[in-house]
């Protein structure tokens, strides 16, 4: 079912957890709400579920206004971060709970309930464990019981709060792939919350990046990674470098020299240059480049990471090179130029600490250029 969130605002006391958030979720989509803690992603999920009520705004399920309905009437499936399985019930009773508590006129016969619950237990690959109690299951198994229980009520939309947060890395990876399979097979509209970008980018059809109660960007994993629309997204998703630069006559200057990048339509003034560590090329002679001294070199899996000290005020940048590059001795000088980059007009929002007013300061037409000359 299609879910539309319109101009939702939510305040806890005087603290605004969500500020004018709108989002359209297509039917059958698997969508991730991604953001650091305190970004409002869980609040948004709980608002869609009906576990919280919005201060302002409307939520539509299809064409129906769901915001006036209670959580029971919305018919959603919610998987809680710590599963919230009923500990005194067996796996079978847990999964059947949503059907058993229906009023008599909508409740299937007991035999049907049992069959449906067993089918779901089979779907989540827990056949044979239906008589176990939650305490007798591993974390991954509990997670799957929670999912089966949520799906038993044939929900309009499936909501998962940090579904893999409490699991160790190996199980997490397996369950991720498995959740994608289940989703493709059952076709439920699914929203999940995560702070793990890898999880969001790998699993979701579309990713909603949130920060400080607002939506920064909505897009496919490719769009989010390759075309971030704000400094926050640039900094939050993947690795990135942020350098304070100056524009003069369409040329980008770093400290006292042009670096060989042009932004001809930009007015003069300060800006911040963003680029990813792997989107660079090394240059031999430096007739317009960034150059710095190597301060640290780390081998990370298939690449070599170099940390550079870029000059007078010692701003740091990190670049990635193929591991066979040997210009890695300490204090060696490396000259390079970003091949893909983006310019944001703001007051020096560092990539670790995005400034609060990033959204308000609409970035001037961020654009990317292939490199221009040498």
């Amino acid at each position: 079912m299609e879910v539309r969130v319109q101009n939702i605002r939510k305040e806890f006391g005087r603290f605004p957890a969500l500020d004018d958030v709108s989002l359209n979720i297509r039917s059958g989509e698997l969508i991730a709400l991604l953001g650091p803690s305190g970004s409002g992603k869980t609040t948004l999920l709980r608002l869609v579920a009906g576990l919280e009520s919005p201060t302002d705004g409307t939520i539509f399920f299809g064409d129906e206004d769901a915001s006036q309905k209670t959580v029971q009437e919305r018919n959603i499936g919610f998987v809680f971060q710590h599963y919230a399985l009923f500990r005194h019930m067996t796996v079978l009773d847990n999964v059947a709970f949503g059907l058993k508590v229906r009023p008599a006129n909508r409740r299937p016969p007991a035999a049907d309930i049992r069959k449906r619950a067993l089918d779901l237990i089979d779907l989540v690959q827990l056949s044979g464990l239906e008589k176990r109690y939650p305490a007798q299951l591993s974390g991954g198994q509990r997670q799957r019981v929670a999912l089966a229980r949520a799906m038993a009520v044939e929900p309009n939309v499936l909501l998962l709060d940090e579904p893999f947060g409490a699991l160790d890395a190996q199980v997490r990876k397996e369950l991720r792939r498995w959740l994608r399979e289940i989703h493709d097979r059952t076709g439920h509209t699914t929203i999940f919350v995560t702070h793990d970008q890898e999880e969001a980018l790998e699993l979701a059809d579309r990713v909603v990046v949130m920060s400080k109660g607002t939506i920064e960007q909505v897009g496919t994993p490719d769009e989010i990674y390759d075309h971030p629309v704000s400094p926050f997204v640039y900094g939050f998703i993947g690795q990135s470098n942020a350098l304070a630069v100056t524009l003069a006559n369409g040329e980008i200057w770093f400290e006292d020299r042009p670096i060989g990048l042009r932004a001809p339509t930009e007015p003069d003034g300060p800006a911040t240059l963003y680029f990813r560590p792997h989107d660079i090329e090394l240059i031999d002679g430096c007739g317009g480049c960034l150059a710095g001294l190597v301060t640290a070199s780390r081998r990370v899996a298939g690449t070599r990471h170099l940390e550079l000290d870029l000059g007078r005020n010692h701003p740091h940048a990190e670049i990635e090179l193929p591991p066979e590059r040997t210009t890695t001795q300490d204090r060696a000088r490396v000259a390079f130029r970003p091949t893909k980059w983006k310019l944001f007009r703001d007051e020096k929002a560092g990539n670790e600490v995005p400034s609060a007013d990033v959204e308000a300061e609409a970035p001037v037409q961020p654009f990317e250029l292939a490199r221009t000359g040498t």
Partner: protein
Amino acid sequence: MSPDLATAAHHVRAATSESRFARLSLIAAALAFVALFLLLPLAAVFTEALRKGPAEFLSALGDAETFSAIRLTLIVAAIAVPLNLVFGVAAAWAIAKFEFIGKAFLTTLIDLPFSVSPVISGLVFVLLFGSHSLIGPWLQSHGIQILFAVPGLVLATVFVTFPFVARELIPLMQEQGTSDEEAALSLGASGWQTFWHVTLPNIKWGLLYGVLLCNARAMGEFGAVSVVSGHIRGQTNTMPLQVEILYNEYNFVAAFAVATLLALLALVTLVLKTALELRYSAEIAASRRH
């Protein structure tokens, strides 16, 4: 023993362990204390009661006034314990699952009966309902008897035993949080269904503990009940009060005979509690952690 061996022996013992001597003397001290202050008095109660033989013991229990005291104690407990069961669950629910102004104050208030002397608790009701109080004359003119009657006894008992159920449940419910309830609601369960099928099973062992302790105290309460009872023989004397009266009349066998009943109540409570713990230890542990 060489220094090397000495350090080796030293290493064998776990860091938190003590020498044999220290362990034995600690255990002996604890056992001596228990024997002196718990077992000895208990034994004394039974020997005094049976000093003149079982026949005397039984006839003392068969006395009409004693019988009425037993009946009254059971009636008071039968009213006070269910009331506190409901109050306790409601208060614990409110404190553990909701945020509201004055929550800290309410939590402190629940503990009040523990910190106030029972005699004062009784006096409060005398001041409230006595003939010189504000509502005393009104009650009298309408023929409602609260002091020196069953209602007063029940009120005093409810007041004194109020914290037991709530105290047992609040930490348990706080630890369990609200996500189980949210899960049930999200699956379409109504408020009552959620309470019966999810909340109540989650707290049942804690609740049972609370009720057991509450009941033991309700039947054994002396101070508060003594103030509001009026000591009318055969009418407003509960078992503890009856023990005092008999003792003051030098009727030691009868006094200790009634006391054995109270002691037995304590023992039964203890045995029940232990039996529950043994039988359901796994489940109790599971309902305490997540």
